[in-house]
Every structure is written in C-alpha cells, then in structure tokens.
C-alpha cells in the first residue's frame, strides 16, 4: 500500500517534470521557427518557483480560491486514472477504478473548476474565454468520442490497459496502423484539446490576456502552471496508450509523448488561428466524418 502510494507520488512527480520540460522545449522550438531565441528550456520551472515565492496573493472569493485547486486536482486525477506503463503494476496508477470513459469525463473536472474559479474573479475576459473554450471543447469532443468508440468496437473493451495490451507485439499492431482513421480523428481532436494554434482562440493572448486565468497570480498561477505540466503529460500518455501502443519503459514513454506533442506543435506553427465558430464547424466537419468512417469500418 505504502509502496503503491510512493509510486503514485513518483509518477506524479515524473509527469510534472516531463510535462514542464516538454513545454519548455516546445517554446524553444516555436521561437526558433519564428526566428527568435526564445526562453530557456527550464523557464517553466522558473516561473513556478517565482510565482509560488510571492508572499501575498489576492482573492475574489472562495470559488476563486478553489479554482486552481480544482484545476490541479483535475489534472492529477486524470493522470491517476491512466496507466502509465504497460505491464507495470506500480505505474498503472488507479486505472482499475474506471475505464476510458472515466478518463474522458475526468478531464472536465479540472476545467470546470477552473472555469468556476475564474468566473468568480468577475473579469469578463475570463468568461469570454471559458465560453470559447467550452464551445470548442464540445466540438472536438465529437471526433474524439467517435475515435474512442471505434477503439471500443475494435478492441471490444473500454479498459485502457486492455487496449494497450491488445497493441503489444509489433509496431504494426498499434492502433495507428490497425485503425488509422480513428487515429487521425483523435489527433485532430487533440489539436483542439491542446489549444495550440490554430485553436488557441480560447486563450487568445492578444485580446484576452491568457484566457481564464486572467485574474490569477502568485501561488494560484504557480499551481496553474504546475497543472499545465501534469495535464499535458496525462493527455499525451492517454493518446500514447490509445493509439501508439503504450509504453513499457519510461524512456519509451518519453520518446512517444514527445513525438505526439510535436504533431500539434508543427500544425500550430503552420496555420493561422480559427475563430470559435470556424473551429466548431471544422471539428464537426471532416474530423467527424473521419470518426464516423472509423466506427463504421469496425462495425461492419
């Protein structure tokens, strides 16, 4: 029991560090693509420490206070319901408590809490950002859901561990190859989920400074930064598990998640931003059709 708890702490720490590092790397890459030097890779860690070090913080109320807590709990919870390494009891976290639907829904836990907290901040930009984010989320959820359904049909299970287990063997038993349509649909959905360009209208840094967390600073912001690492990592691990054969070792995990993350980075640097209504229509268009095709393919 204690061992298990330790491993859980360990894996959370691992994913936090890796997630933050990934963020740093991506910033650097994007900057280079843009022809800038960019911040150092460890900049996210610096930000967190700096924010947490601030002695005072302001609060707009209880919900404002709890918002970041919800957020980070959501991130950690999501991560904790996903098995990290295939075949490892210790790194399977709490994935025995629920299947892929639990993960899909738990993703919302943090987002909801964040939205509530920022809502109490009383800043109109927060609300605007949340409205945009929710709208976009409801749209990219469709191809993603279809993709997951397709997997459920394909593997006849909802269990993430079982899906990973089914992909073991050769590289060609990865979902990416056995069910490419579902993978494409999911990847496109992931672009939206990551809120990178071209789907970054939610946090649209120019018009509504950084989106929902507009009012947050100090330790609150620090927690939000931390969560960005955990949550990013969790999502990537989920995608890795579902579509890319999972991972049996930590290095394999690191390589795979890095590659997956790169997809969205490359797309992000090469496309202009969508307006919210455009992105909704986009997700409900071709990606949805791809998802439907993926389901039908395995249905028949």
């Amino acid at each position, binding site marked *: 029991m204690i061992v298990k708890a330790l491993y859980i702490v360990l894996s959370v720490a691992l994913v936090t560090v890796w997630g933050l590092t990934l963020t740093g790397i991506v910033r650097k890459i994007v900057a280079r693509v843009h022809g800038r030097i960019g911040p150092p890779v460890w900049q996210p860690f610096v930000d967190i420490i700096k924010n*947490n070090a601030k002695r005072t913080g302001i609060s707009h109320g209880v*919900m404002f206070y709890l918002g*970041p807590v919800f957020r980070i709990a959501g991130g950690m919870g999501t991560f904790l319901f996903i098995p990290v390494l295939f075949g490892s009891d210790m790194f399977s976290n709490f994935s025995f408590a629920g*299947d892929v639907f639990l993960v899909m829904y738990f993703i919302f836990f943090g987002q909801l809490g964040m939205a509530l907290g920022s809502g109490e901040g009383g*800043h109109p930009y927060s609300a605007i950002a949340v409205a945009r984010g929710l709208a976009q989320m409801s749209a990219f959820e469709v191809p993603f859901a279809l993709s997951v359904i397709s997997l459920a049909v394909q593997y*006849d299970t909802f269990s993430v561990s079982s899906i990973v287990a089914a992909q073991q063997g050769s590289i060609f038993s990865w979902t990416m190859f056995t069910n490419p349509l579902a993978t494409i649909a999911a990847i496109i959905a992931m672009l939206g989920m990551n809120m990178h360009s071209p789907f970054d209208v939610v946090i649209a840094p120019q018009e509504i400074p950084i989106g929902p967390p507009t009012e947050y600073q100090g330790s*609150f912001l620090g927690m939000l930064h931390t969560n960005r690492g955990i949550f990013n990592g969790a999502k990537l691990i989920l995608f890795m598990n579902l579509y890319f054969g999972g991972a049996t070792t930590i290095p394999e995990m690191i390589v795979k998640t890095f590659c997956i993350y790169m997809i969205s980075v490359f797309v992000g640097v090469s496309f202009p931003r969508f307006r919210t*209504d455009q992105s909704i229509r986009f997700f409900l268009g071709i990606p949805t059709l791809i*998802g439907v095709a993926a389901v039908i393919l395995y249905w028949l």
Partner: protein
Amino acid sequence: MVSPVYLLVVTIAAVFLVPLADRIGRSYGMSVFYAAIAAAAGLGLFWFLSLRGGAPAQNVFIAGFTGPYAIQLQLGIAESFVIVLVNTVFLLASIVLGGALIKEKAYALTLMLLMLTGINGLVLSRDLFNMFVFMELLSISTYALVAMPRNGQAFSAGFKYMIAGGLASTFFLIGTAFVYRTAGTLHLDYLLRSPELLHGGVGFAALFLVIAALLIELKPFPANGWALDVYQAGHPGVVSIITTAGTGAVLFVLYKLLPLMSVRMLQVLGGAGIVTFVFSNLVAIKQENPGRLLGYSSISQTGLVIAGMVFLRLFGIREIAVYAAVAGGLFLNHLFVKGLMFWLSERVGPRPIREWGVLAGKPLLLFLFGLAVVALSGLPPFPGFWAKWEFLKLLAANGYYPVLGFILAGSLIEVFYLFRWLGYAAVKEDHDTISPAPAVTLPMVAAAILLLAASVFFSGSLSVREPLLRLIPAAGILFYLLEPLPGRVKTVLALAASGSAAVIVLPGLSGLHLVFGIMLLGGSLVQMIAGLGSGGRRRGIYPGMVMMVYSFAGLLVTETALGFFFAWEMMTLASYLLILRGSRSARTPLLYMIFSTGGAFLILAGLITALPAGSLSSAGLGDLVFSGGTAFYLIIAGFLVKAGVVGVHLWLPGFYSEADHDVSPILSSALSKAAVAGLFIFMSLANGTVPGSDMFSVILGWIGGLTAFFGTLMAIYQEDAKRLLAFSSMGQMGYIILAASLMSTIGWTAAIYIAVTHLLFKGIMFLSVGGVVSRLNTTNMYEMGGMIKRMPLSFMTFLIGLIALSGVPPLTGFGGKWLLYSALVGKGWYMLTALALFSSAVAFLYCYRIIHSVFLGQLKTGFRAVKEASVWYLIPQFIFVMLIMIFSMVPRLLIEPISAAVGKLAGPDLLWQGNTVSHALGYWNGTTVMMVTMGVFMVPLVWLLSRVRSIQKVKQFNIVYAAERPDRPETTHYAHNFFAHYTKALGFLSLPLVRRFWEGAGEWISSIAAALRHLYSGNGQTYALQVMLYITVLYLFMR
C-alpha cells in the same frame, strides 16, 4: 308509486292556475310556477329512487284502454333517470331566470310550464303521434321564449328557429301519418313487433322522415345555423333549457326509436353524430361570443350522445345499463355543465370570451367555471370521462377505429378551445367586476354539486374500485375548501396528506413500481417543504399539488387499465392547475393541456385497443393484449408526448419553468418522471409480446438521442434561468428514453439511474434557482450575477447539482453516463453513443452558462442587499445533496436495487466485485474514484492553505482591466447571449422548425374552421335550405 300521468297533470294544472294566481299578485303566480316545477322534479326523484330500489316499471294507458288502442305512458328506469335530470335542471334554470321572469307577464310563466310539459310528455309517451304533439308543445313554447331578451337579435333568431323547427315538425308529421298507414299503429311497442315493415318502401320513407325530423331538432352539423343564432341571442337561462332539457327529451325520443331502425340507418345516424361532434368543435375554435361558443359546444356534445346511443344499438347492445353508462353519462355531463356554463355567461354578461378575466377575482365562480370546463373536456372524475371510456372501449372492441379517431380528434379540439377560454378567465386583466347575484350563483353551485355527486355515482358503477383513486379528486376538493387558510398551514397539511399517502402506498409496492413510487412520492414530498418559504395565501397551489401527488400514488397502485388512465388524467389536470396558477401567459398552460391531452388520447386509444376481447368491466393492466403492436405503440407515443420528446416539446419549456418557484422543481424533477414511469410500466408489461420491437427500439432510441441533443442545444441559448433548466430537463429525458429503448438490463438500469439522479440534481438546481429568483424577482440570467456573495449556500448546492448533472466524476452523474455508454456500445448503437457524448459535451456549455451568469461574475448594484434564500428552500436541497453524496460514495447502494427491480432482460448483467461494477466491456469503481478525487483535491488545497497565508480580499471591481477600472457591474458581467459564436456555428439547428410546424398546423385547422363558419350565413332561408339539403343527403345515404 304515483301514476306518471301526474307528472303531466302537475304542470298542466299549473299552466291553468298561473294566469289566475297572477291576477291576484305576481308572487302568487311565481309561487305556483316554482311549486309545479319543484313538484315535477320531486316526482322524478321519487320515481328514480323507487325504481332503482327495485319497484316495477309503470305503464299507464290513457283512458283505460289497453294495447295499441290507447296512448301509453311508460315510466321505467330510463325514463325516470331522464326525468329527474331534466326536471332538476329545468328547476335550476327557472331559478336563474327568476329575475327575468318576474318582469314579464304571466305568459312567460305559462310558456315555461308548457315547455316542461312538452319535455316530460316526450319522455313518457310511447305513442308516435303523441310525441309529435308534445314536441310541438316543446318547440312552440321555445319559439316564443327565445324572444325573451326582446332585442332585434332575439327576434330574428327566434324567427329563423321557427322556420327550421317548422320544417322539422312538417317532416315528423308526414312521417308519423305514414308510419300509421304502413304499420297500422302508432304505438311504439307494437311498431317494434314488426320493424321490418318500416325498412322498405313507404315504411322506410316514413320512418326516415321521423328520424330526420328528430335529427334536425337535435341540430346536426351543418344544418344548424338557426340553433346557433338562438344560442347566441336567447336569454342564457332559456337557452340552457333548450340545450339541456329540450335536447335531452328529443334525444330520449331518438333512443326510444332506435330499435325501429335498420342497420344502415343506424350507421348513417351515428356518422351524422360524429360529423356533428367533430365539426362543431372545429368551428367553435374561431368563436368569440360565449353564447355562440357554448352553442357549438352543446351541439357537438349532442352529436356525441347521438353517436353514443346509435353505435351501442348498432353493436346489438340491449342492456339499459350500458346505454346509461355511455349515452346517459355523456348526457348527464352535458346537462349540468352546459347549464352551469350558460348561467355563468348570464352572470358575466355580454362580454366576449377574451374578457372573461373578470372571473379571476371571483374564486367561487372561477372554480365553477373550471369545474365545468374540466367536466366538459371529458376529464376525470366527471361522468363524461367514464362515459367516453366506455364508449370508446366499445368502439374499439367492435373495430370502429376510425370513429374512435374522430372522436378523439374532436375532443382534442374541444379541449383546446375550452381551456383557452379557461385561460382567459383565469388571468385577471381589468378591474371591471361583476355584481353578486345569488339567484344565479346558487343554481350553479347546485349544478356543480350534482355533477360531483353524479361523478361519484358513475365512478362507483364503473369498476374504479381502488379507494385511492377516488381520493384524488376528493383531496383536490378538500384543499380547495381549505383555501382560506394561510399558505404555510396549507403546506403542512399538504405535506401530511402526501406523506400519509406515501406511507400507505409505498409498502405495498415492489420492483419498478417501488422505485418510481419512491421517486415520485418521495421527490415531491421533499420538495414540497420549500412551500413553507413563501408567505401569503397562495391560492390555487395546494389543490393541484395534493391532487398531483395522489395521482402519482394512484398511477402506481392501480391494477386496472381504467384506473391507470384515470390517475393519469387526474395528474394532467392537477399539473395544469399548477401551471395555470403560476404562468403569466395564457399560452403555456394551454399548450401544456393540448399536448398532454393529445398524449393522453394516444394512451387511451392504445389502452382500449389492448383491452382483451369481451371484458365488460375494466380489465386489469396485466390482461392487456399487445400482440397487435399498434396498441403498444400508441401508448408509448402517448408517454413520449408527455415526456416532451423533440417534435412535441413545444409545451415543455414553459411548463417546467413558469410555475411558482417552489412548484417548478416538482414539475420538472418529479412530474417528468411520471411519463418515464408510464413508459417503463408498459414496456415491461409488453416485454417480448410486441412484434417488430427491434425496429421500435431503434426508433425510440433515435427519438431519445435527438431529444437529448436538441434539448441540450436549446438550453444553451436561453436567457431565462428556469427555461434553461427546463430545456436541460428535456435533454435528460432524452437520455432516459434512449437508455430505456435499449431494452437491456444495463440500459434499463441506466435509464432509471439517470431518472433518479436527474430527480435529485434537477430538484436541487430548480430549488436553488427558485430561491434566487424568489429574492431577485427576475428570471433573466443577465440581470443576475455574483450571487455567490449573497447566497453561498444556494451556490454550493447548485454547484453539487451542476457537477452531478454534467456527469463529471466523482458525483453520481458519471454513473449514469457510464451505464448509458456501456449499454449503448454493448448494443452496437455507436452513432447514438457519439450523439449522446456530443450532447453531454454541449451540456457543459449551459451548465457553465447558468452557474456563471447567476452566481459568479459581477454582483449587480440592485442586489447587493439580498439575503440568502429561505431556509425552507435550502432544506430540501440539502437533503438531495446528502443523497447525491451518499450515492456518489457508494454507487452500489443505488445501482443494485435498481437492477434488481429491472430484473433480467436482454444483454449482459452488471457484475459486482466489492464496489467495482463491471460488464463485458468496462468497469467502474465509484468509491475509489471518489477517494482518489478527494485525495488529489486535498493535497493542493493543503499546499495552498499552507502557502498563501496573507490572502488579500479585493473589491468587486478590482480586476486587471486594460488600465481601466470598471464601475458598473452591468458592463462587466459577460452574460447576455453567452454563446453567440455557437449560434453562428450551429444556429441552424435551433431554428424553431417544430414550433413553426405546430403553428402551421394550428393555422391550418383554424382556417378550416374559419371557412366552415361561412356556412352560417345568418340568413334564415339559407338555414332552411341547408336543412332541406341535409335531409336529402341523409336520405341518399340511408336508402
């Protein structure tokens, strides 16, 4: 026993005495007049009671000769029934007329008495020509009395009436003479010995003329323009007699002649009755004048009574009891109701129906009017309901489905215009008032009491034996009488009444019934506590509320089809009363009533179609036969309408949102489950016996899925907090139906699980919003904001409800979603799974929308001082929150009993391992999820608490706002048109196509009605022409 002759003698003697007594003094004349009518009514009652007590029927021959040689008066049970009714109403109407009569000369009194003589003679006589004489007595005295208001309208109406009536008596006379020529007798009983004499050649033509004349007297559509003018122009008192007593007597003559008719004649006559019923109701839609509207309604009711007895005869039924149950019930209903309504129109005076709002300030009159409308619409517990049930049952049993359909369609139209009228009356508009007039009110009260007594009588004779069912209306009336008490006292009484019902009913239930019993009764009970939070009298809430709760109990307890339908209709009625009281517009209650009635009629049609053959008394629910399929589909369609699935959801947003703030939660959370309960009761009854049920499940599934989607989608565009929640309920109903359609163990478990959780969280959310709204007095969300500062407890409960609703773990909502998706994927309905997932994602939008706009954001200036919602609103919320928490911690507590109640259906079962529930595809351990969530929540919280010691509270406008400091919350609270971009992207999906469709249908019907109205040109000659043409057409059909 007194000889029936004396019934005639009494009034005739009074006819001769009144002029003499009147010479002495006005009051003497009046006294003789009333004494005679009272004596007649008394005689009728005496006979009816003794004949019911087993006394033999009386046959009296005039002049002491027997056989066919002398005129015979017969007084059997049927005659005495009609006589007691007709004379009673006549007496009441004369009391209403008292004020007008006293101004007239004695002639008016004699005319009235002669009219009554004619009526009684018509009922008693067994001789065809004698009937002619009495009919002339009746009609000629009516002709004269129509002129009573003494204005131009009355005179021209009277003259038109004379033309048409004159034609009718012409035909009757020729017919009678040739009946004698052909059959050699005028005595009915002797004619009946060889009716075939009258089925061909001269005999046929003669009988045809007699029947045609009677039919014309009964004002068939479209040959009835003259009658409508009379109804509009005549004195309401006189008109009420024409349409009740007069029509009753003629109807009884028709009844006496039924055995003479050939099958063909009966068919055509029944058709004429149905046509009259449907089209008169249709034309009535466009009516504004109360007299004329009542006229159309009277005519339609007469048509229905004709159809009732004719079809009974056609089915070869001979028992008087059946005629009494069908035609008698319909007639009795019509008699008292129409009397009551005409007298009320006398009381209200010459106002178009739109201006009947004057009644709103008069509780007694409004109650009477409501009673009349309800009774006339054929709703329980009134005789019309039982009669219609019996009638439709017989129609179905004999395969007359089209007729059944027409009657239901006509009744629906009837419900529409009657309840529209009631809506006008219930909304107080002007300060105009009406003066008291006890002489009119007392007869109305008497009619209402008699109607209720008759209801008891009919319900007793028609096998609704569960005492609980009878308690439903009784409880309603009891609480109506308690209305003068303060609202809080009534709440306590209502809680006690409903609580005792729950205590009595629940232990006797098991399985699904028990689950729904706990939901409906328990849910309502808990939420009723909120009523303690409002002061004042709160008139009009508790009769409906208690009736509704009792109907819930009745629905679950009853074992018969009739009992079920009775409880269902009572529930509809009760909820209508609740929405009528709460709604500001007349549209919402009306829409609700129309759709509910439409749904109820589908259920009714299904139930009677499914009744096993040859069941005279009402069959048990378990005996229903669904093998034909149609019956089952009809019933399910009915429940779907009541559930408000997409396409027929027009009534839903207003209904769930516009009631009082402590009533809306019950309607939206508990009442909505009644449709689900019905759905499940009948699906489990029919399980496995319905052919083609795979197709059925698919269709039902898509209906559910689309309802979930569109309900959710429309919810995000609402600006009204309660409307948003209402649409959210629609969406949740969609999930329930979708899950139910799966017909698998997990599916049904999911459906009921969602139903239970929906009850809990929607109760919380509605109560919470209700508490807010009751403080702010607005339901527009953009006018609210920042309420978390003023109402933290309401916010907290609302948040819990919201999380549960959105399906985010760890609260109960996720369980429902998980079960649903498991079942859907298990069944292979992948597209529906995706649709449901999409809907539930869209649901986040409105969830955030409402909690942000109401509780978060900027507190408005005007609301800085509002207090937390009443504690009585909070108590039920906390009870529900507690339940949600318990079920979230240990989902097994909820899921296991539900799946036990569902039992074994298709598909895999749920397996339990500790707290982990699993099936072939997936698994879920709610307890662990809860623990983990608590854990990951506590860690950062503790961290934060330890880190941020010197937290600084800032003022409302202290935000990072582009170097500005906003000072007005209105400009800073982003709440209006929240999802504008969503409208831009998917707005086409929320076009009000459904509303346009129904409005188009409504327009269409109403333009038909408008076109039909032009038949009634107002020209007496045209009316006569219509009568002639009608008879010609009738002849061609009957030949």
